[in-house]
């Protein structure tokens, strides 16, 4: 039996390892702190794996290139941070509209604009959801540890292939640059998903005719099946089509194929929820501080629990609601001015919801969460 490899690496390195494990073989990127290590590792490793690293002239070019590579059937990814993620928004919409699987790692840093270069933040939640224009859905995963950076990157590729959708990893500066022990999977240990390929004859294939699950099989450039991708509103053949009923069918399908599968896509981790009266709901590095706060409060006999969101989008509303069914109140600590708390309020409108926000480039510490909990009583 092959022994699992144990490594002591950073979150960025773990994202790169996860991508390589998931068989990602194309990276296009542009340097930006605090994500540059991912590019550097990709530049070194991908050529040895038979893959390809390209350094692009900016972030617009980076995401555009991974869309191009993915259309050839190569699992592709890029990494960036706030300003670069802003530049990627138009092409993120292209990947959604063209249903092109790809993975974008956004290592969040403090903004707006150049912001605190380079301090941590968790303030790209809504940009990630709504940054590209128009009605759409998106998948976003939020790791809180180096191990989760590794596992969620593999999952990101699986989800992007399964749902023919771009997947964003919302990491943050602290998670990305801290080092922890990671157990790497042995080959075959985790199932790797591939996009559905057309099964019929090339003559019958339509690029955007969905199966019953709402997801069209995807041919690759170079296949006998002709793939037509367009950023315009299109019909099943992949031709621009401005008929209103066609437009509505497409927009609805692109939305529903993600939102209707929230149960499959979303993941939360719960701690001490059996008898929790108050639950902390958070994600990323703040979940680590919150877990520490929970341990301390439990030692004092307080009945508090924690939900760590591993998926931000689609929002795991049903799973949260179920987990907090017996709780009296919720406290949402986050490193922004309150982006997550509104989603929690929407999902759990019958509960007493408290917010603790911090937006100054500093991490939230356990003591602050404990204090916020005391203040909420």
């Amino acid at each position, binding site marked *: 039996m092959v022994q699992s490899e144990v490594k002591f690496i950073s979150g960025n390195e773990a994202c790169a390892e996860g991508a390589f494990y998931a068989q990602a073989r194309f990276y296009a990127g*542009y*340097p*930006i*702190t605090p994500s*540059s290590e991912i*590019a*550097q590792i990709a*530049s*070194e490793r991908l*050529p040895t794996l038979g893959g390809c*690293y390209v*350094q692009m*002239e*900016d*972030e617009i070019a980076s995401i555009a290139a991974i869309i191009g590579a993915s259309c050839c059937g190569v699992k592709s990814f890029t990494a960036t941070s706030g*300003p670069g993620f802003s*530049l990627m928004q138009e092409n993120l919409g292209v990947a959604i509209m063209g249903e092109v699987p790809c993975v974008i790692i956004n290592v969040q840093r403090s903004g707006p*604009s*150049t912001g605190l*270069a380079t301090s941590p933040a968790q303030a790209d939640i809504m940009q990630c959801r709504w940054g590209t224009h128009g009605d759409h859905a998106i998948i976003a995963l939020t790791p809180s540890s180096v191990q989760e950076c590794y596992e969620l990157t593999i999952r990101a590729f699986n989800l992007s292939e399964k749902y023919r959708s771009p997947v964003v990893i919302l990491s943050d500066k602290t998670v990305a640059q801290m080092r922890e022990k990671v157990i790497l999977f042995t080959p075959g240990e985790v199932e790797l998903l591939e996009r559905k390929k057309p099964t019929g004859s090339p003559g019958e294939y339509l690029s955007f005719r969905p199966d019953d699950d709402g997801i069209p099989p995807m041919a690759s450039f170079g296949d006998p099946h002709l793939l037509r991708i367009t950023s315009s509103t299109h019909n099943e053949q992949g031709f621009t089509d401005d008929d209103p009923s066609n437009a509505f069918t497409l927009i609805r399908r692109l939305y529903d194929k993600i939102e209707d599968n929230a149960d499959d896509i979303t993941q939360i981790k719960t701690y001490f929820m059996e008898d929790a009266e108050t639950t902390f709901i958070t994600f990323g590095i703040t979940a680590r501080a919150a877990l520490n706060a929970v341990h301390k409060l439990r030692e004092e006999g307080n009945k508090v629990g924690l939900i760590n969101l591993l998926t931000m989008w689609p929002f795991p509303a049903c799973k949260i609601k179920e987990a907090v069914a017996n709780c009296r109140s919720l406290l949402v600590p986050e490193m922004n001015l309150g982006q997550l708390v509104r989603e929690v309020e929407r999902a759990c409108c019958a509960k007493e919801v408290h917010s603790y926000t911090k937006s100054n480039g500093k991490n939230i510490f356990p003591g602050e969460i404990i204090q916020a909990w005391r203040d909420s009583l």
Partner: protein
Amino acid sequence: MKIDELNRESEMIYSGHNACPGCGAALAVRYLTRALGTNLAVVLTASCWSIIAGMPPFTALKCPVLHCPFPSAGSVGSGLKRGLNAKGLQDTTVIVLAGDGGTFDIGLQSLSGAAQRNEDYIFVCYDNEAYMNTGMQSSSATPYGALTNTAPYPLFKEGQKKDIMQIMAAHGIPYAATATVAFPEDMEEKLKKAKEISGFRFIHILSPCPPGWGTESSDTIHLSRLAVATGFFPLYEVRNGVNWKMTVPTDEKRIPLNDYLSGQRRFKKMDEPRRQILQKEIDRDWESLMKRVNNSK
């Protein structure tokens, strides 16, 4: 030039700033402000200089600074100059200061737009030949064969350095020139000339980077001189995109490129065939430049 002949009063840069020892870019901006006087407005984009100018208490510039996003220096400069004009402040010299990334790569679109509109300001590119501020990743200004953190051994940087001067000349702008800190009189003269001309002006400054290039901080001037003497970075100016003129003559028999490469850690592992390729590239560019210079006579 003697030290007491220097016009220190007009320098718009404080001492004790945040640049690394031996930073070519810091020295270049010092010469720049000396040549251009004190009525300046500076547009900065993401680069080492955004740190040098922006982090108290080590803030280095004494003039107003507009620090803008990475892709937009050329456009922000356009708006700033037109805004000053609208307010009747035509005399203020607008400088856009960008690194090679903000000029050759992400900044090229806004630079090209501004040059084509013949916007009335001076765009200064200090070129340290990689993304040094984010930790030495390749740019399209990185020379062939250099090691960077995204072109690690045994890969080396592929593709030749983008010829930004020909790109700018092709826009037909009134004035474009190259400069190095090894020839401060030449640099100052070019900047003063640029100041007297209206329309778009472009100054390309080679800017040795001791941590990024793997050189001693005391080698910055020497390396800049070698870059000129080998023909790696010739000093010249271009008027209206067609009139090419050498400003610091380089001997017909240039010294071998190896003399320039050998003192730098980024070229240390470069093998002989690669060195030959780079030498040939420099020879070819040199001949092409000489043709343009001779045709302009």
